[in-house]
């Protein structure tokens, strides 16, 4: 199918304001979702669901959350993992302490709790700007991690400070197989991604970008600084919180606060930088790059190198190649994979005529 928008005219604003104004894009997106929901469950296996797709989707969600805050609202954060932790432990405790609470409600609750915490740590953003703002998120990162290990109440007094998530049962349907957990995760992530897309193309999204691009002008237009920034922090934390809950419930089953340490926060930040700041698609591309590439490299080295090659060497080779690829892709397109994809599409649109 060739990629052409020739002959497609938008006759209504609602038509022009769709997420995918171009027909081919709509079809492609539809196909992708169709495959993800209807085909993958039948062709995939436990390894793919349990070890690749679920973590990929969850981290994409977290990256999406951070992208709303950093990519759209321009507020840098190095503490996304802490809010995942809040989500995970909130969901666990909600399930534990509220009798007969539905898992989905627990997830939503987890998101809201995380949003609340996010609000608090967002407050300094009114005064502290730019890279210095990172410090507040670092404070969040370390203090939250500390609090969760410090007070046994959060882990229901587990001697090793680990929580093991409750079973996922929705309307009597048990989500105990990898494929079911995959479908649940996919559904949640797809919905939240759609919501994110809607937010960034409406009033609040424009307000975020305005604050990001030129805060004085935004203020003169009448956009309230604090409220807009705090909304960004809350929504972003909500996404991270839900992601954290899924990490505990749909993926690992057991988590400790250390599972959400600074490295995780950085990992998520890398995702949005590599994927593309201020791009929903970029969050997913970035997650794919950061999560899947190392695994791919690990598989590749074991398949390619003879068994005689020492394990230490292969492991370090993976690191080296990974680092090299990061630099390479940035040199290729500093604005991230999403931009690369966009440019590719524009080229395709004009093809075969260069101008």
């Amino acid at each position, binding site marked *: 199918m060739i990629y052409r928008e020739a002959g497609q005219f938008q006759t209504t604003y609602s038509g022009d304001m769709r997420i995918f104004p171009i027909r081919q894009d709509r079809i492609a997106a539809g196909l992708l979702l169709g495959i993800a929901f209807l085909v993958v469950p039948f062709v995939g296996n436990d390894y793919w669901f349990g070890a690749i797709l679920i973590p990929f989707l969850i981290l994409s969600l977290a990256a999406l959350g951070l992208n709303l805050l950093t990519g759209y609202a321009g507020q840098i954060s190095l503490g996304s993992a802490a809010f995942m932790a809040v989500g995970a432990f909130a969901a666990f405790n909600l399930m534990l302490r509220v009798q007969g609470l539905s898992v989905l409600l627990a997830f939503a609750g987890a998101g809201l709790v995380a949003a609340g915490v996010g609000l608090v740590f967002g407050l300094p953003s009114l005064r502290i700007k730019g890279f210095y703002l990172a410090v507040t998120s670092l404070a969040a990162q370390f203090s939250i991690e500390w609090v969760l290990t410090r007070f046994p109440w959060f882990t229901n007094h587990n001697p090793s400070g680990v929580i093991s998530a409750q079973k996922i049962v929705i309307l009597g349907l048990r989500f105990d197989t990898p494929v079911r957990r995959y479908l649940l995760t996919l559904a949640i992530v797809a919905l939240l991604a759609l919501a994110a897309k809607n937010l960034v193309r409406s009033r609040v999204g424009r307000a975020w970008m305005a604050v990001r691009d030129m805060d004085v002008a935004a203020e003169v237009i009448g956009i309230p600084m604090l409220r807009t920034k705090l909304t960004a922090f809350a929504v972003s934390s909500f996404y991270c919180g839900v992601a954290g809950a899924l990490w505990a419930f749909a993926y690992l089953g057991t988590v*400790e606060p250390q599972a959400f340490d600074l490295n995780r926060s950085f990992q998520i930040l890398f995702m949005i930088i590599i994927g593309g700041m201020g791009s929903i698609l970029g969050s997913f591309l970035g997650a794919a790059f950061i999560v899947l590439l190392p*695994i791919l490299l690990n598989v590749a080295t074991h398949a390619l190198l003879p068994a005689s090659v020492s394990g230490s060497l292969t492991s370090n080779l993976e690191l080296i190649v990974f680092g090299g690829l990061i630099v390479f892709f940035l040199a290729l397109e500093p604005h991230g994979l999403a931009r690369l994809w966009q440019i590719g599409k524009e080229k395709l649109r004009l093809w075969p005529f260069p101008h």
Partner: protein
Amino acid sequence: MKHAATRIGFLALLAGAALAPRLSAQEQFIPMPSYRVGPYAAGGTGVFGGFIDYLDMLNLRDKGINGVKLTWEECETEYKNDRGVECYERLKGKGPTGAAVFNFLSTGITYAVIERATADKIPVVSIGYGRTDASDGRVFPYVFPLITNYWSQNTAKIRFIGMKEGGMDKLKGKKIVNLHHGSAYGKETIPVLDLQAKKYGFTVTHIEVAHPGNEQESQWLQIRQLKPDWVILRGWGVMNPVALKTAAKVGYPRDHIIGVWWSGAEEDVEPAGEAAIGYIAAGFHPSGTDFPVMKEVQKYVYSGGHKGNLEDLSRFGKTYYNRGIITGIINTEAIRTAQAKFGKKPLTGEQVRWGLENLNIDDKRLKELGAVGLLQPVKASCKDHEGGGAIKFQQWDGKKWNVITDWIPSDQSIVRPMIEESAAAYAREKGITPRDCSKE
């Protein structure tokens, strides 16, 4: 730097590399979810080096176990839970009969795979780490924290201190500081210590060191103020040498610092240099090369042009390496036991599980294995997945570890009830009905 040279050679060799050989029917696959990069690489390379070399030795010496060749594949976990789970899922199906048994050398990953492994019917062995209450085999049929767990170790340690003081009754009124890593692992022994403090009437102060612990000025100044009789060092990675150095700085006697076995490797003391001399650490196995089994490995794996898994031969016989050797012994003995019941063929994880549960390495068997003194007798059962529990204590003299005690048994009268209580709680949380071992 010869190794450097060869390594650089390999770096270049990546492109034109051959494909790995396929697996054939008479092979038993053992997955190797190792970590060879990152802050804990020293431990990962050492233990998995010994593990792999032992299997290699069995293959070369007696064609595997009863003619069943042992095969393995490594998978880099980077000591991260999610990477570990990925490795588990990737390797669990490999080989003609699937993965026989998993060893992750990581408490976090072990926790993360318990439910998966139980569902997949693949045993998970965690020697000296992992989920303590999994020692209750009735609730955790597929998890084996063999030889000894953290709580057992801790009771043995208090006994050792009692010995030093001249009797457990002498512990009354003594002051002990528990300097622990600020992680789930670090906090795990707090309850068992508090319990013993009550029982023996000593006071215990828990002081946390924030990860990674490369600065402990304040903690040790506090300790100097407290003037404790003993300091238990529950360290992790870089925290250990720093603790010893800082102890020296504030002038706390090293021979009154007692480390856990994750603070008791050469890597933990050598960086501290002088400051580490006299420091005592617990261990469920000694270091050193003067055991027949080590000679065997040396003979078959590191001679005749055959290259073992270690890049740096100086690590042969070091603590981590020996821990790998005994990991190899435990795993392969379990497979051997299982073969006796299910036949001399590649076995499924479920069959190996039976082997682990009925594992019985007595003194006679230890002699045959040439591991007397390296490994304590281990006898697991449906009820008890620990099967050992005794500790040896060794002291660092600046060059090497010297064993200064015989096997000191743990105090199961304290540990077992805690384990059963904790396991029962887990069973309730998960809706598991514990097995009735009389029916096994």
